[in-house]
């Protein structure tokens, strides 16, 4: 059976490739031969996609570049320099230089996090996190043509596209939530599957980003497989069917808070738990876990990988779960962490294998006994 959800896209060379982009394409090495034809095309699409129109609008291009070297969440999570502590593990060779943008960024406390409302906001997140979640068995119940593997390929492509466009994590998580919720209600054909993914990413970027790409950019991202009008129609359909309920609580929302709570929180821990949350997006079977559980489990799993005291009492008492409730989710994340090293879906793994993100994806898996 053909498991590729996305129809072969025209192998067209984009008119203008930004020179900087070209470098990037050459720099990233991936075992292209091993991946199916379609994935290769997809992979190239997203890489070759020039950032049309964004450049002029983004007056702050330079600053933004620096920020994106680390996940967005880091900046707001570290409260001051003193909490940054390097952890050097055998596989992690990079160190933070004195001029690290992260360090500079962290000296200013983020007003949105020290605000006196943080308790109310956390409580309200917990109350509402289940409000806009997809059904957990829609592939079996609703879809005729889409399977788990196809979903994984689409998510992988969305992760890659988001990275290329330097979207915030929130945008990516929202986009995938929209895809899953739409698929929970309507059966979608293989031909329309990528359109749905791209349209959801477009909606999410309109919701979260300051400078969302234009529809033309998205047409281009999909290598002209779909027309501008296809996008407008698909967007309207998603908006209507999901009733414009886009204020969605995702693991990222909880991760920020939990990272502030957990003892000995450092950069590597932050990057690694962010990675685990992103990996989880690829796995349909993990839709069953609520966002707060994923976020908490990601931190405990990361603590395990980093050989810290795993069940940090501070985080245990702050998050609404017991060790028993957390354990299966932690194991699932560790399983994903290990299998990502050999998976065909490479976007997330490659992103977090780079030295910019401290090679966290290459760390050694811990022994599960440590978790008992």
């Amino acid at each position, binding site marked *: 059976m053909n498991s590729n959800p996305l129809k072969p896209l025209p192998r067209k060379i984009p008119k203008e490739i930004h020179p900087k982009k070209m470098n990037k394409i050459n720099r990233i090495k991936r075992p292209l031969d091993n991946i199916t034809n379609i994935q290769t095309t997809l992979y190239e699409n997203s890489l070759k996609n020039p950032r049309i129109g964004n450049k002029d609008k983004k007056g702050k291009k330079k600053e933004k570049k620096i920020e994106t070297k680390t996940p967005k969440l880091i900046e707001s999570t570290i409260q001051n320099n003193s909490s940054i502590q390097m952890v050097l593990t055998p596989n992690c060779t990079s160190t933070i230089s004195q001029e690290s943008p992260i360090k500079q960024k962290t000296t200013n406390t983020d007003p949105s996090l020290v*605000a006196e409302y943080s308790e109310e906001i956390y409580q309200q997140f917990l109350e509402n996190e289940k409000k806009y979640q997809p059904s957990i068995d829609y592939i079996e119940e609703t879809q005729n043509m889409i399977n788990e593997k196809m979903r994984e390929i689409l998510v992988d492509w969305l992760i890659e596209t988001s990275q290329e466009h330097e979207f915030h994590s929130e945008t990516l998580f929202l986009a995938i939530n929209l895809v899953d919720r739409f698929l929970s209600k309507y059966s979608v054909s293989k031909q329309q599957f990528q359109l749905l993914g791209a349209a959801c990413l477009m909606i999410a970027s309109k919701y979260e980003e300051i400078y969302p790409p234009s529809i033309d950019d998205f047409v281009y991202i999909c290598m002209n497989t779909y027309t501008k009008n296809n996008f407008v129609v698909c967007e309207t359909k998603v908006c209507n069917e999901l009733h414009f*309920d886009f*204020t969605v609580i995702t693991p990222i929302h909880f991760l920020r808070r939990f990272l502030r709570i957990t003892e000995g929180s450092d950069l590597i821990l932050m990057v690694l738990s962010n990675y685990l949350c992103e990996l989880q997006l690829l796995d349909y079977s993990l839709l069953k876990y609520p966002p707060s559980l994923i976020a908490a489990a990601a931190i405990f799993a990361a603590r395990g990988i980093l050989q810290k005291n795993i069940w940090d009492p501070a985080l245990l008492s702050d998050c609404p779960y017991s060790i028993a409730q957390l354990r299966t989710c932690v194991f699932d994340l560790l399983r994903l962490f290990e299998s990502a090293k050999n998976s065909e879906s490479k976007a997330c793994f490659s992103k977090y294998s780079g030295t910019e993100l401290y090679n966290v994806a290459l760390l050694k898996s811990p022994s599960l006994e440590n978790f008992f």
Partner: protein
Amino acid sequence: MIPAKVDDYTDLQKIGEGTYGVVYKATKISTGETVALKDIRLESEDEGVPSTAIREISLLKDLKHPNIVRLHDVINSDRKLTLVFEYLKQDLKKYIDSCKDPIPTRQIKSFLYQMLRGVAYCHEHKVLHRDMKPQNLLINKKGELKLADFGLARTFGIPVSSISKEVVTLWYRPPDVLLGNLKYGTSIDIWSTGCIFAEMYIKKPLFRGKSPKNQLKKIFKKMGTPSKEAWPSVVKLPGWSEYNFQEYPGKTLQELVPTMEDPEGFDLLSRMLQCNPAKRCSAKEAMKHSFFNDIKK
């Protein structure tokens, strides 16, 4: 559920024109209920649903509070998007303009308290309004006041350093944002609310600048140029060295808002109109201020 249609409404009367559409008063045929329809044209955009509409709708759907305008329905069809709101008689701007006598202090207190309650609710839900001004506050005959126009609102989950600076109508924009502070948070709405508080007494906008620089000058002339002692981080803001304002001594709030009289009111106003955002009070704190001791809560 049958999707709502524009045909479900009759008696359309234009009541306002915003930046991206027209607002009508209308009657819902099935119930006789009066509503406000905000039409957003899509064909001019050609970018599908505008991001302002995406945010306004999805945020308002989750903000249910007596001091926030209710969004009843959304009609999304054929290149046109219509938002169906509960109807309120007037916006605060029109009300202020229509009052010949000074607005009674009790009335001002009640409006301000309701404004703060709406703002506090938004902030508790991680939402910044970012466009507080009299035109965007709606009132009805019962004396209720509700926050409207969430077109510039957004959640503050994303590190604020990357939030847009194109926010808040110039006259209600706080000095730190005018100086280029992109790390603003909830304090942005408090400055605007403070400006409206004063405006209800003097019946015209407190600071009416023509450009960001001119707006800052107006603010500093009235409030005094902030000193590095009172606001150490001000020197790091890009506009500070660029504009290099002279040190205006500033005036007293009594001079600026002569009709206020109430010392409690001056105290509260001074806490809201702090140039240094870190010193500005929160909406929740403002609600607890003794200025409100004598009103029904």
